[in-house]
Structures are given as structure tokens and as C-alpha cells.
């Protein structure tokens, strides 16, 4: 295609399908949470529409790309788009890391009476602040004297959701599965780098081998992560286990979701490599996914260090 001319795509139905899909998904989800009968099925329908849209839309872009109607400028637009999408992901994780640091360094110590928090002894005299074992106070934990003397009128003993809470008997040991999982994910970063190298050298067989290894490592990570959740749950560490459980599950959970998406994207890339969509000089699809995987990898490293260690 002529480099001098601009490229503008034809009209498209994918966005409206996507809007319908995502809205259906959310409306179904909200109803499901409120115990409405049809919630789950509507949610599943919305999810299916969304997945259909993703495959259709990306498929169309891939087809257009391989048929050669895009020029360098379109390629650069995709690069800009991908990079700022990733930045928005970084900021999304930043919100949860921020919550982790704020709760661990400020709000839990304050509850424990740090910085001359004079209310603590009166409100919760049996309370000692320890980061990983936060759980909801049982109703009796407010001292009777405090209630009787009128310093506390009422106290939200039941959480917003009304779900019963539990105190974990154990917290997750970083020497076991987490260390193994870190090793797996780091190894996947290494294999992906080899795949990248092979791609740049134009060696397709090697790319396929390294990519398969990367996908396998990612899938193994997910498997072990599910195992770890199982262990943690049995030991009483749940989403409802106070702020420790909240931050632990939300951070690792969203990370796990991103790993899942990454594995799917890598699988698509594997398929596209076998179809011969990339060459040594032109492989933005691969680069975008590779960078995404490195990003997910680094997020895990941050989790491993800041959630389990520091």
C-alpha cells in the first residue's frame, strides 16, 4: 500500500457487539450477586458475546494485517495504543499495591494504637495489630465497659456484605509454592526471551519450541496458584479474612487473571507463528504480547517481594 496515503478502516459492527456483550455481562453479574435466578446465565451469555467480539475483532485486524493493507503508520498507531493500554494496567495494579501499603504501614498500626491513637485501648483492648491475621472483630470484641460508658454507641461488627468472617490459622509460607511459582514465571520470561531471539533470527522451529515452553510454564504457574489457593483456604485464609486476605487474594487474583489472558494471547501468537504471520523484521503482534508477558512477570515479582517478604 502506498506510504503516502492514510489508511482509514471501513465501518464495523464489533464495537456495538462488544458494548452489548460487556453490558450484558455486568448486568448479569450484578443480578447474580443479588441472588437473582437468571443472573448467572445472563452473565454467561454476556461473556460469550464478549469473547465472540474479541475473536471476531482481532481476527479481522489480523486478516487485514496479513493481507498487507496496513502501512507503517497503522503499525505505529497500534504500538502507541498497546503501550498506553499497558500503562493503564500498571495504574490499575498500582491502586491495589497502594491499598496494600496503606493498610499494612498505616491503618493496621493505627488500629493497634500507633501514633498515640488514644481510642484503641478503649475500643479494642484485646486487640494487637498484626498484619497478616486481621479478621473481623466478633461482636463481643468491643469491650463491655466501652459500650456501657457510652464511648462507643454501636459498632459495625458485621461486614458490608454480611458474610461471616474467619481468622486464618496460617499464613502463606513464601518458601513453598510461592517460591516455586516465582521460579516458574521467571523461567517463562527466559524462554520467551529465547523465543524472541529465535524470531529475530528467523528460526521458526525454535520459536515454536520456546513458545510452547513458555505457555507450559505459564499454565503450570496457574495450576500451582490454584493449589495454593486451595491450601490457603483450608488453613482459613479467605477473602473474608480481614485486610490481609483481601489484599492477598485481590492482588494475586488479578495477577492470575492477567496470566490467564497472557497464556491465551501467547497461544494465539503460537498459532500465528505457525501460520507464518511474522518475519524477523515485522512482528508487532509478537512484541506486544511478549511485552505484556514480561509485564505480568514483573508484577508477580513485585507481589512475591512485597506481599510475601518485605
Amino acid at each position: 500500500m502506498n506510504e503516502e496515503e492514510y489508511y482509514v478502516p471501513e465501518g464495523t459492527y464489533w464495537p456495538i457487539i462488544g458494548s452489548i456483550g460487556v453490558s450484558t455481562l455486568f448486568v448479569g453479574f450484578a443480578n447474580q450477586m443479588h441472588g437473582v435466578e437468571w443472573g448467572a446465565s445472563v452473565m454467561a451469555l454476556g461473556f460469550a458475546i464478549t469473547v465472540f467480539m474479541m475473536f471476531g475483532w482481532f481476527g479481522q485486524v489480523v486478516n487485514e494485517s496479513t493481507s498487507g493493507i496496513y502501512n507503517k503508520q497503522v503499525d505505529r498507531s497500534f504500538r502507541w495504543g498497546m503501550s498506553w493500554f499497558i500503562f493503564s494496567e500498571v495504574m490499575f495494579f498500582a491502586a491495589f499495591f497502594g491499598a496494600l501499603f496503606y493498610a499494612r504501614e498505616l491503618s493496621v498500626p493505627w488500629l493497634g494504637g500507633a501514633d498515640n491513637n488514644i481510642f484503641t485501648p478503649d475500643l479494642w483492648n484485646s486487640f494487637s495489630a498484626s498484619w497478616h491475621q486481621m479478621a473481623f472483630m466478633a461482636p463481643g470484641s468491643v469491650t463491655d465497659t466501652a459500650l456501657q460508658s457510652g464511648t462507643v454507641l454501636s459498632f459495625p461488627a458485621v461486614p458490608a456484605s454480611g458474610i461471616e468472617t474467619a481468622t486464618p490459622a496460617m499464613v502463606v509460607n513464601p518458601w513453598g509454592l510461592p517460591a516455586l511459582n516465582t521460579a516458574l514465571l521467571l523461567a517463562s520470561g527466559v524462554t520467551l526471551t529465547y523465543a524472541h531471539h529465535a524470531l529475530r533470527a528467523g528460526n521458526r522451529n525454535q520459536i515454536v519450541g520456546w513458545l510452547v515452553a513458555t505457555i507450559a510454564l505459564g499454565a503450570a504457574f496457574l495450576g500451582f496458584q490454584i493449589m495454593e489457593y486451595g491450601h490457603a483456604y483450608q488453613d482459613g485464609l479467605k477473602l473474608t479474612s480481614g485486610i490481609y486476605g483481601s489484599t492477598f487474594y485481590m492482588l494475586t487474583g488479578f495477577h492470575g487473571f492477567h496470566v490467564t489472558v497472557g497464556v491465551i494471547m501467547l497461544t494465539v501468537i503460537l498459532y500465528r507463528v505457525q501460520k507464518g504471520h511474522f518475519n524477523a523484521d515485522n512482528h508487532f503482534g509478537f512484541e506486544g504480547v511478549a511485552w505484556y508477558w514480561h509485564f505480568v512477570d514483573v508484577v508477580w515479582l513485585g507481589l512475591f517481594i512485597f506481599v510475601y517478604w518485605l
Partner: protein
Amino acid sequence: MTTATASHDDHHHGPEKGLMRWVKTTNHKDIGTLYLWFAFSMLLIGGALAMGIRMELLQPGLQLMDPHFFNQLTTMHGLIMVFGAIMPAFVGLGNWLIPMMVGAPDMALPRMNNWSFWILPFAGGILLSTFFMEGGAPAFGWTFYAPLSTTFAPDSTDFFIFAVHLLGFSSIMGAINIIATVLNMRAPDMKLMDMPLFVWTWLITSFLLIGAMPVLAGAVTMMLTDRNFGTSFFDAAGGGDPVMFQHIFWFFGHPEVYIMILPAFGVVSHIIPTFARKPLFGYSSMVYATASIAFLSYIVWAHHMFLTGMPVAGELYFMYATMLIAVPTGVKVFNWISTMWRGSMTFETPMLWAISFVFLFTIGGFSGLMLGIAPADIQYHDTYFVVAHFHYVLVTGALWSIIAATFYWLPKWTGRMYNEGLAKVHFWWAVISVNVLFFPQHFLGLAGMPRRIPDYSLQFADFNMISSIGGFAFGASFILFTYIIVDCIRNGKPTTSRPWEGAKGLEWTLAPKADYHSFNKPPSRKLIEAESQHS
């Protein structure tokens, strides 16, 4: 390949026919139009809610509605105006104008552009539907502080949360698109420092959006799990902290207020030079001032939280950092005034709106400085003074610039001229009534009237009545506004390609009604230089 080539040729023939044109469109002008009409209808809905609020506050005592419904009105009014009216209106302006201003045929990612619009009606629909749900719409204020929005909120809050998620997707995609357009679709001969101010301010706003909206998504996600899955991010009983919600919210919320005002600065920086017939004074200082404001907006969030029991060191830091914002903002105001200094000024409608923007926005800026003083804020916090402050910056700031931009670029959008006489009547009607509406609220706030309360003490009665009457008059002015716009689209006199004598910018080199695709070939360096905002 053949089908691809055929489709590639399609767009030279102009738009498709029928309704599907608007659903399928990848054209920046179509999408810009959709955004603007969506924003306008949301503005009318949000305005109708505001009329309800002022009706209730016309007289002391509970007059028309129960307090719970009043709370729903204030909450939904804020949410609709911020997320449904102002932000989409600016994205619509950006869509229409940025490709023309940078010499591009369209946005960089046109299909995604379509999606970032078409999410909005769905998100808006979900948000509005909460009014009809059991327990009513969200009633915890547009800032949805925990635990009001977690422990004590109705079920409809979950729908609100998902609506915010969708609005966030839309804004992020819109921002990504604008960044890619400005950085990649700009005419090859246009340097960054040749770009018009509206493009610059939107580019910087996009960075704010991409930095802030995901944090909001995180905040509402935590709310969602707190409400439904038993997490305790914002619940002290589980080791969390309701104040943490405020920190996360305002880390989004403060950049958000600059998201709503930076493009306004850009609009005014176009209109004032045109009607003063002088180049913009201090072009580069405008760019740097915008960037500094954007940077500072990330590090001042807790000035919304002076009364949460922050350590004194925190209060001092956030107070001083907030004061610092006055410096780049002052640079801008002085630049606008210097642009007008000894210019051969005329006062067509866009100029009237722009000048009143400078004047009234500065009032809002000053009351903001007053609120930024931590010890004084103890008195002002959560009073009508705050309401007056942010309505001066958002109504007579952001909305004013949107209306100014509408009149300024309407000839380029429609190829027709609006009725100047009627437009002037509308301007004076609006500018007088808006001051009657909001100025007395300063006095109410200083005297101690709290915001978000449907009833008030008797000593506040007079000012409230004045304010309400101003409110009804201001609301009615939009009937005239609608008429002027529709009249222009249908019966306006055809204009030339450059209807404003002193106007500069690539968009004025296009046909009177800009073609469906703006620049199929990039403009030359000579043209860019001739149309730049430099002196």
C-alpha cells in the same frame, strides 16, 4: 486483497446512509457528533435533576421530596454531569477538532474510537436505570465515600459500580486514541511546539485520564468486593480503613478535575487570539504551564481530606503543594489577558463566552485557593462554599468553554452560521442567571450551610430563594440554546471556510463544512507555519 482494496476506497465516497451509519461509523466527525449529542442529552437530564434540587431548596423545610430522594438527586446530578456530560463533551470536541488541527484524515484507531463512544449509552443507561430499582439510585454523593457506599448503600450500587467501570473503559480508550492520533497522525511537518493549544491540552489530559481512570476502576472494584465478597478494604473492623477509600478516590479525583478543565484552557486559548486579532501571548509558557498543572494534580489529592485527621505534616504538605498550582494557572490567566491587551477586539458570541470564562473561572480558582488553606478549610469543608467553588470552575469554567467552542466551531461543523443576535441574548441570559444561581452560595457556605442537606435554618432562606430563582432561569436558558443550535443546523446562512476574520488553525483551511475526511494528504510546512499559534 480485493475486498480490502474495495473497502479502502469506500471512505472517499462519504458517509453511509441510514441509521447504521451511526452505529458502524469509524469517522471522527460522526463519532464527535455522537459524543456531543450524547453529552448534551446527559446535560439536560443532569440539569433536570438540578432543577429538582433547587426546587426543594427554594424554601426552608421539607417541601417536595423525602431526604433520601434528595440525596439521590444530588448524587446522580454530580455523576451524570461529570461522567456523562462534561467528559464526553470534551472527548467529542477532541474527536471533531484534533484530526483537523494536526492535519490528519481521522483518528489513529478509528474502530476503537467507535467503541469508546458506543460504550457510553450503555453505561449511561445502566446508571440511570438505578433510579427505578428497589432502594432507589445511589444516594451517597458523587464521591461515594465508604462506608456510605459499602455498608449502607442500596443494591443498585453494584449497577453504579459497573457503570463506572464501563465509563472508565470508554475514557481510557478515548485517551489512548487521542495520544496515538496526536503523536502518530500529526502532519509530518508539524513539530510538537507547532501544535495548537487545544491539541496540547488534550494530549496532556489524555495522560491524566490514563493515569487516573484505572485507579478509579481499582477503587470501585474494592468497593464491589467489600460489598459482595466480604473483603475489608474500607472496613476498620477488618483492618481496612474508610479513609483509605478517600485516598484512592481522590488520587483519581483530583486529576479528574483537571481532566475537566485543561481542554477548556485549550479552547479559550483559541478563541481569545482570534477575536483579539493577535497571536496568543506566551505560547510555550502555556504549554509548560499545562504540563506543570497536570504534574501537580497528581500530588495534591489529600487537600480534599483535611478533616480526616491527617498528621499535621501531611496537611502542611498538601496545602503548600495546592497553593503551588496557582502559579501555572496564574500564568495562563495573565497570558490570556496579555493576548487581549491592545488587540483590536470584537465581541462575537464565542468571545463573550471566552472572556466570561476567564473572569468567572478565576473567581472559582480563588475560592479554590481559600479552600486549599488547611486551617480555613475546617470552616469551609462540606459547606455550600465548596458547592459554589466547584460550580464556578465546572459550570462557568468547563461548561462555558464547551459552549464557547460550540459557537466558535459550529460554522465549521455545519457550514452554516448561527443567529448572532439570539446567541448574544442567550449569553447574557445565561451569564447573569448563573451568577444569581451560584454567587449567593458563597455567602451561604461561609455562614455555615452544609451541602447535601434538603432542609436549612431560616437565616439561609433569602439567599437560597435567590439562588433557586437564578437556577430556574439558568435552566431555562438551555431551551434557547437548543433552539439556536437546531436553527443553525437547519436554517443557518452558509458561511465561508474562515468565518472568523482573525482565526488561525489548519481547520479553517478546510471547506466551510469540513469534508468527511479532513486531510487525505498532509498539509505543507508553509501552511502549518502560516496557521500556527506562534507570534
